């Protein structure tokens, strides 16, 4: 390995910095009182508090899931602070961008979020989540003209309680799983999107997640509803500051697509993965699920997972409407001591429902990368089709690539196919490219990008470029 490569390999996490903002944080610990406090601080209606308490009581009785192919010390849920908000935004929201804490603005600038003028040119409306409370939302006016609601979750609870109440928990029930129950009990904020009938959202909606305050779990809640014939593309991207202590992130994302509606949800995840020995890093235990409620509806998940010490995430589609379509495109890259257990679930209920799964796992160093996916065809799903393709790429002989597909079929007219391959970047491929004057580092990058091409092409343009860059950056130094 060249000196240059070694230097790159040792390069720290570029986004590891913390912002010094006064935080209002609840002391660590979890009890019904803490939940009441969170709910009170957010001035929530009674029904939401009851909903949270129900979730908390269920959570207390649930066992910690242990089936995933990941290993970590037990989490002390009493050592986590469940609420933290930048002080200035408590109470009334900021009147304009000028009211935002300049420190926070600087953080976003360093992360390259086009929150000010650039966003206008970029055409991106950003609902930035700084720790737990949304501090800024832009482009609201323009979206509101078409009846589109895009706001923070707390705001939605205040201003559109009937919509929130109608859909909250309908896709991911409070008792769904351990981390979803925890999230339901203590979720702090998140985004809410509603696209009315027949409206095509004119821009890509996007949030930018940051984990900032020390010892603060991040419990986001996102709810996106696309009414009949609507279309929306939603982007989610994240980076987190360098920390020594593990931080827990247990988000819940719910998508609802009515007749002929389409929701496209793209994620680029680049949280702090811990150091080379696996110390620190984010635990990312997320529940993401979409419900294709109407006929001919479509939900498409695209994810590029390059960060987090542990990723436990299965964006899923419940294909209830006839002729509905579910898609899952994923690139998961693990290096050093990272562990990922990720995949999807496609539950076919409606007639002629179709789903596609394309998963690309890349493992380097001592990392463990697992694909775990369920394809379930219920007796009602006549003529359902699924095609799954899971490819793994191993870089080095210390890492692992695992594939755990679950195929459950209860309808003889269904067609289900699963393919999986495991390969490595072969010496022949490198030699071929070297011969043509391409350096080893570039050759590997080229091969990996080729390996991931099918997924990248599903990402919106600017995200695709970012994802490709991110992958190159992540792989630097891991080849030799």
């Amino acid at each position, binding site marked *: 390995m060249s000196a240059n490569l070694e230097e790159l390999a040792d390069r720290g996490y570029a986004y590891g910095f913390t912002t010094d903002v006064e935080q209002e944080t609840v002391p660590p610990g979890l*009890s*019904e*009182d803490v939940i*009441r406090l969170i709910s009170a601080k957010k001035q929530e209606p009674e029904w939401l508090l009851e909903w949270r308490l129900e979730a908390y*009581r269920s959570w207390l009785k649930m*066992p910690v899931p242990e*089936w995933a*192919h990941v290993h970590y010390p037990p989490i002390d849920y009493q050592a986590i602070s469940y609420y933290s908000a930048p002080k200035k935004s408590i109470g009334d929201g900021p009147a304009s961008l000028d009211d935002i804490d300049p420190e926070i603005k600087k953080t976003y600038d360093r992360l390259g979020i086009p929150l000010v003028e650039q966003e206008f040119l970029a055409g991106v409306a950003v609902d930035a989540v700084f720790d737990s409370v949304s501090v800024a939302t832009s482009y609201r006016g323009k979206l509101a003209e078409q009846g589109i609601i895009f706001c923070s979750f707390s705001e939605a609870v205040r201003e559109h309680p009937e919509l929130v109440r109608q859909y909250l928990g309908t896709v991911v029930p409070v008792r769904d799983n351990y981390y979803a129950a925890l999230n339901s009990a203590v979720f702090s904020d998140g985004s809410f999107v509603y696209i009315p009938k027949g409206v095509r959202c004119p821009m890509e909606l996007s949030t930018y997640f940051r984990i900032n305050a020390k010892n603060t779990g991040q419990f986001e809640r996102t709810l996106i509803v696309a009414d009949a014939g609507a279309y929306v593309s939603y982007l989610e991207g994240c980076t987190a500051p360098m920390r020594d202590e593990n931080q827990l992130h247990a988000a819940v994302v719910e998508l609802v697509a009515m007749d002929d509606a389409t929701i496209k949800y793209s994620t680029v995840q680049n949280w702090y993965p811990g150091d080379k020995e696996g110390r620190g890093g984010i635990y990312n235990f997320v529940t993401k699920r979409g419900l294709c409620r109407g006929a001919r509806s479509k939900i498409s998940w695209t994810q590029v997972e390059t960060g987090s010490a542990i990723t436990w995430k299965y964006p899923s589609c419940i294909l209830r409407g006839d002729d509905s379509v579910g898609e899952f495109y994923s690139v998961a890259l693990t290096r050093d001591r990272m562990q990922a257990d990720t995949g999807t679930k496609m539950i076919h209920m409606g007639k002629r429902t179709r789903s596609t799964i394309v998963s690309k796992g890349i493992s380097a160093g001592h990392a463990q990368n697992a694909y775990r996916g369920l394809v379930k*065809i219920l*007796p009602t799903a006549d003529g359902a089709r699924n095609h799954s393709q899971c490819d*793994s790429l*191993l*870089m*080095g*002989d*210390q*890492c*692992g*690539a*695992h*594939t*755990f*597909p*679950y*195929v*459950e*079929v*209860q*309808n*003889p*007219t*269904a*067609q*289900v*196919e*699963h*393919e*999986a*391959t*495991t390969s*490595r970047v072969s010496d022949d491929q490198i030699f071929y490219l070297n011969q043509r004057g391409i350096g080893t580092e570039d050759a590997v990058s080229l091969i990996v990008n080729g390996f991931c091409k099918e997924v990248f092409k599903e990402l919106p343009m600017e995200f695709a470029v970012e994802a490709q860059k991110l992958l190159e950056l992540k792989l630097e130094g891991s080849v030799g």
Partner: protein
Amino acid sequence: MGGVSTVNPVAVTAVTDPRAHWLAAATETAAGLPPELALPELRAAARTRFERLGLPSRTLEAWRTTDIAPLRGLEPRRAGTGRAPDAGWLAGLPAGPRVVLVDGRVHAIETGELPAGVSVLGFAEAARRLPQVLAALDTLPGLDAHAFAALNSALFEDGVLVHVAAGARLDALTLAHWSSGDGTAVHPRLLLVLEDGAGAGLLEWQGGQGTYLSTALTEVRLGRGAQLALSTVQDESAEAFQLGGLRAQLAADAKFSLRRWVGGGRIGRMDLALTLEGEGAAAELDGLVLAGGTQLLDHHLELRHAVARCTSRQTFRGVLAGKAKHVFDGLIRVDPDAQQTDAQQQCRNLLLSKQALTVAIPRLEILADDVKCAHGATVGALDEDALFYLRARGIGLAEASTLLVRAFAGEFLDALTDEAMRAALETRLDAWMEVAA
């Protein structure tokens, strides 16, 4: 409630621990064992293992797909001695040398004269004549978390050892298990040990009547270059719970071929654990599952490539009718040093009914980077075009379906070298189709 948090009282009711029943059974069994089969260390370890594991429930990932609830209410008794196998069943077995076990105990050893270097012995006899071979019991890797394997070790009262010395060969032997039912639990045990360069072809035939639980456990140890072809016909009674296991350990260049025909039992689950421990070892596993009614038939398999240059092939087929459920959960694990592994896994299912359920979980755990691993799973109905083609030629629907199912099962049957057995299984397949379709 104000700001006071309340704790929901949890009702604690005294539920009889199902383990207690089995531990009592183990104590009862131990009291009646001949001294050479007391095996105190093995029994104590098995007992501890079972106490720790308990009976599995669906909250365990490995038992998520196997609901043994119907078994829970049953507290099977120890089978009485001196019962005889059904005469009709016995007459239907393939001709040739055979050993008959009834309720897990050796009933008759009818092997005639065996080739030199080959021993077929009941465990009590083996304890006297080949104690060093019998010592392999419970020492092979795998099934550590399988509660029913632990139960078998704690409770088996007898068993059969097949030992083939280095370079020797046993061409054909039938190991027939009969379970007499009547709400009993039986714990048949087989130990198959082939020394370096030995070869054997064995047929295992499981049958019975009425309700019973069988924890049949087979252990296979193959020396360098040894070759074992084992065919199993699982034809248990329709009310039976067959929750057996098999573990096998292969030394360098050893070859193990296992063919399983599975059609019996109310719940029939087989846990297989194979370890390829020597370079060049090869395993070939084929299964054909015919499930109808409300049958639940499972295969759970862990195949470990521990060293370099081993090969493995798995092909499991399921034909499902009625409300039957077939689960294939297969894991191929490739250790960090197992470079140049070539592993293939296929699961193919044919659904004849809308209520039938098939679950395929072909898993790969790969820790080496120079390997060839492939797995595939397909599920489908009978091909409409093929059915139409046959019917256009005047073949009735039922017959056409049978023909197509036969073709689907054909690859399994064609690979059987024993003509008589193939004919017997073909007849069974046709009979099954008549009932199922």
